[in-house]
């Protein structure tokens, strides 16, 4: 098939964008899962959509392509562009504009033969006018009815169609902001596309933009959560390159503002437990039945929250929690440090022993999740204890390894 700038299936480009944006060190030859032509086509498409953000580097292993974006500088997520690339047929686009021109207000409804007559009248000016048969027209109208753009109503035995109510004028500041901070923000971007282009009042710091690529999956997941339905989803294990089908009951979306990862928390009947699924590993999600015991699983999850530092949950009922505690010291000039502990403590507890010493402790399902955060207090940790001795040993060994890395105690690596 000839190359086209537009695509039919988003999932293919989703993988490439992730690779180019997050990693960006692989050469063409390393994209082993895909054909060389497929790689060339996807790279060319991304170049066409994201132009200025695409970069190239020549290495001994070949030419590397990567996407580099300082998300603090771009007021709108550049990755939204990928969602605006769905392919269509010549008939689709012609019919779309003519149909909405014919159904120009929400007051007047027309039936199929009246619409067909209007289409033919408008297209008569072309040398070889397109002809849309009734079945094509009905199919397209049905599609727009399901999208909420057109309303159908039966009068006697005849179906009439009219356009839905006109869109109210929308607050563009709110769209600028919420399209960047809420899930499925690309929908806000679609709405912004309809108005005049102007500079947004908002910029974003610590802004992770890759979540945008999971929007379709999240739309299905949220719909299921609101309807208390179970879903069937396909997930990929990238390490094992394996795709699995899972039947789960979706409960919450958990978002990390510090790593950009998003997780679906869901009850998995097969394992009889609530677990986290990275949304970027969910390929598709489709609705199943309404779950009778939804509220029970939801309550179970809420009960777990006071012991969740991140997304790790209770592995087995009754399994004991892991305890972690550490003490830090700070000078009189470092009064922001206890403040930092307080605002970052999450489910933990902070006690201020004196003016220069504070102690943090928590009982959690997985104390390993705290380690990166505890390391950020390096230079002031006077005491640390994990109930899991292997974890404590690893923490202390890591610190020793860091000393060695910088030639401060061990043999330099």
């Amino acid at each position, binding site marked *: 098939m000839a190359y086209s700038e*537009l695509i039919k299936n988003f999932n293919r480009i989703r993988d490439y964008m992730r690779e180019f944006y*997050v*990693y960006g060190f692989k050469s063409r030859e390393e994209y082993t899962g895909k054909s060389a032509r497929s790689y060339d086509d996807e790279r060319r498409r991304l*170049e*066409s*959509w994201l*132009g200025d953000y695409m970069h190239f*580097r020549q290495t001994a292993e070949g030419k590397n392509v*990567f996407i580099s974006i300082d998300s*603090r500088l771009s007021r709108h997520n550049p990755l939204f562009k990928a*969602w*605006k690339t769905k392919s269509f047929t010549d008939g689709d686009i012609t019919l779309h*504009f003519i149909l909405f*021109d014919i159904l120009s207000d929400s007051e007047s409804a027309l039936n199929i033969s009246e619409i067909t007559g209007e289409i033919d009248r*408008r297209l008569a*000016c*072309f040398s070889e006018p*397109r002809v849309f048969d009734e079945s094509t027209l009905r199919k397209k109208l049905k599609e727009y009815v399901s999208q*909420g*753009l057109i309303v159908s109503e039966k009068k006697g035995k005849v179906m009439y169609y009219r356009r*839905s*109510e*006109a869109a*109210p004028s929308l*607050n563009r500041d709110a769209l600028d*902001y919420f399209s960047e901070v*809420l899930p499925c923000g690309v*929908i806000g971007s*679609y*709405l912004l*596309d309809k108005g005049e282009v102007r500079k*947004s*009042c908002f*910029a*974003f*710091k610590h*802004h*992770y*933009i*890759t979540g945008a690529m999971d929007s379709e999956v999240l*739309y299905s997941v*949220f719909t299921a*959560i609101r309807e208390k339905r179970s879903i069937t989803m396909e997930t990929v294990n990238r390490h094992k390159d394996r795709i699995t089908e899972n039947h789960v009951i979706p409960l919450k*979306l*958990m978002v*990390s*503002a510090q*790593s*950009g990862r998003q997780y679906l928390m869901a009850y998995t009947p097969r394992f009889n437990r609530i677990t986290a699924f990275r949304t970027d590993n969910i390929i598709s999600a489709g609705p199943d039945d309404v779950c009778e015991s939804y509220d029970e699983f939801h309550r179970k999850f809420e009960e777990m*929250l006071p012991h969740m530092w991140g997304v790790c949950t209770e592995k087995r009922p009754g399994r004991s929690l892991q305890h972690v505690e550490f003490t830090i010291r700070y000078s009189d000039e470092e009064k922001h440090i206890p403040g930092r502990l307080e605002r970052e403590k999450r489910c933990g507890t902070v006690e201020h022993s004196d003016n220069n010493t504070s102690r943090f402790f928590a009982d959690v399902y997985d104390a390993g999740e705290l*380690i990166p955060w505890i*390391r*950020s207090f*390096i*230079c002031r940790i006077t005491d*640390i204890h994990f109930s899991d001795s292997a974890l404590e040993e690893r923490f202390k060994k*890591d610190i020793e*390894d*860091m000393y060695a890395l910088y030639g*401060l105690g061990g043999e330099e690596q």
Partner: protein
Amino acid sequence: MIFSEIYGAYYNTVAAIISEAVSHPVSNEDIRKIIEKHAFGESILTIPEAINAERWQLIKPDGTTPIEGKPTLPLSTLQKRWLKAVACDPRIKLFGDVNFDFPDVEPLFLPEDIIVFDKYSDGDNYEDGEYISNFRLITDAIKNRYPIKVITINRKGKSVCSVLIPDYLEYSEKDDKFRLIAPGHIINLGRIVKCKKSNKPFDIGRVRQSRKKTASVSFELSDERNALERVLLHFAHFEKSVERIGEDRYFVTIKYDNDDETEMLIRILSFGPMIKVTAPGCFIDLIKQRLLAQKSCGQ
């Protein structure tokens, strides 16, 4: 479906072309300019050809159109559901009357469906009346470019008054705070005590332009315990480059705002021995200072 051609760049481009053509014949040059504004790098190879070959029967050879009115679309169910979810967010109060309520649909999600589990707990109070009116005045001043007088309390408890024209508001989800950015000023909205329109003449020429100083840090990364993915995702929001330099070893360079050096330092420390900073020397010294201080703690 979110991924639909009706929201696509091509449909928007064609809508813009038709909008012109309903009032006057469009030339190839007009079409080219509209494509450049609304579509992608290579769209110029596709859209004019499809129009001129009458594959898309929307523009006649003379540049007029059989379409009678400017193209518009009602809101789709998908758009209404998302807007209704936006209307449920407590931060919506910052924006005044938004008109995002649609009785015929349910919100796509509610605030309680989402937990941002690692944001800081001392975020701004978006329900506070004073905060809301300050926010609205600042966004208005940004759009209409007029000076405002801002009074804050500094760390020593003293009142500080600044007159400025705000450039933009910067939001951090991690901090859950807005900051006002203006030439020579970065002010946390939560610290603003009073904010009002300034009627005094304001000499824009005298104001220093806020140009952020960029710094960079380079490090070697060992891909142990899934560190490659964790590190690259964690630093994904920066401009960066990554090279493989050996089996499970990578060389990463990240550009960041110089003001955020301490934050960058602790973020790098959080990855422990998986990261070894190699440049610049002053950053290595900062790491060493912290490690030496830790050694003196006896742990």
